[in-house]
């Protein structure tokens, strides 16, 4: 039954694009955080998380994403999410993530918005 969350990463300038695949629970959240922190350590200022292949999350996994968001905000960076299921979108809004990170319908919109935000003074 174990559904390990896999994370794929691609770097596009100073933006790192992370694709998740699977259940974002504590292990999934930690895997995402590990990849995100590695990218931040390597100079990424913007992170885009594409959750298209994640259909279920839990509050423990989301709390780890919040820690990632705080780290990005501390460094004056930008974090955006895209391709959320309606339920995950709703849960992110319940937990207040949408107040601090942007949510976009698709990857193209997210990448464009993050690039614009990073370019503005």
């Amino acid at each position, binding site marked *: *039954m*174990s*559904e390990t969350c896999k994370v794929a990463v691609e770097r596009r300038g100073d933006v790192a694009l992370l694709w998740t695949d699977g*259940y974002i*629970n504590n*292990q999934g959240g930690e895997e995402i955080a590990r990849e995100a922190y590695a990218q931040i350590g390597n100079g990424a200022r913007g992170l885009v998380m594409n959750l298209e292949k994640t*259909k*279920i*999350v*839990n*509050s*423990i996994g*989301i*709390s780890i994403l*919040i*820690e990632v*968001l*705080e780290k990005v905000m501390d460094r004056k960076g930008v974090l955006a999410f895209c391709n959320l*299921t*309606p*339920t*995950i979108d*709703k*849960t992110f809004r*319940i*937990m*207040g*993530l949408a*107040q*601090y990170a942007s949510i976009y319908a698709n990857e193209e919109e997210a990448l464009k918005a993050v690039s614009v935000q990073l370019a503005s003074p």
Partner: protein
Amino acid sequence: MFEDGGREISLTIPIAPDMELVATAQAAAVGEYIGMSRDKIDEIKLALVEACINAFEHAHARDDRVHVAFRVGKETVGGEWLEIEVRDQGQGFDAATVEAPSAEKTFGGRRKRGWGLKIIKSLMDHVEIASGEWGTRIVMRKYK
């Protein structure tokens, strides 16, 4: 799936990593059986995950198990519903003393957790919680 007079399915899951997904698979099957929409089934699954992991983490259940029951029914006014009962034989808790989470306390603060009940109540249409020395029972219902 449900026989007349016995519209309930019971499931007992061990307290072990990812066992909440066994319960969500059953919830999805029951939701599909009554023709519930995919989005509503997903909301039920997420609420059920939260109820299960609350029991896994906090209950300290004497039998190391969480008991889940799925029921369907129909009301004249509200229509068809799916109800899930999550029960543990743990130490119980006082719902009145549970601090309500908020984005303000979560962001920049040290308290990131404690969102389970808020999520459950937000995603389901009706939630009842009973708890005592005998354990905890959460009954949550969603209308089709």
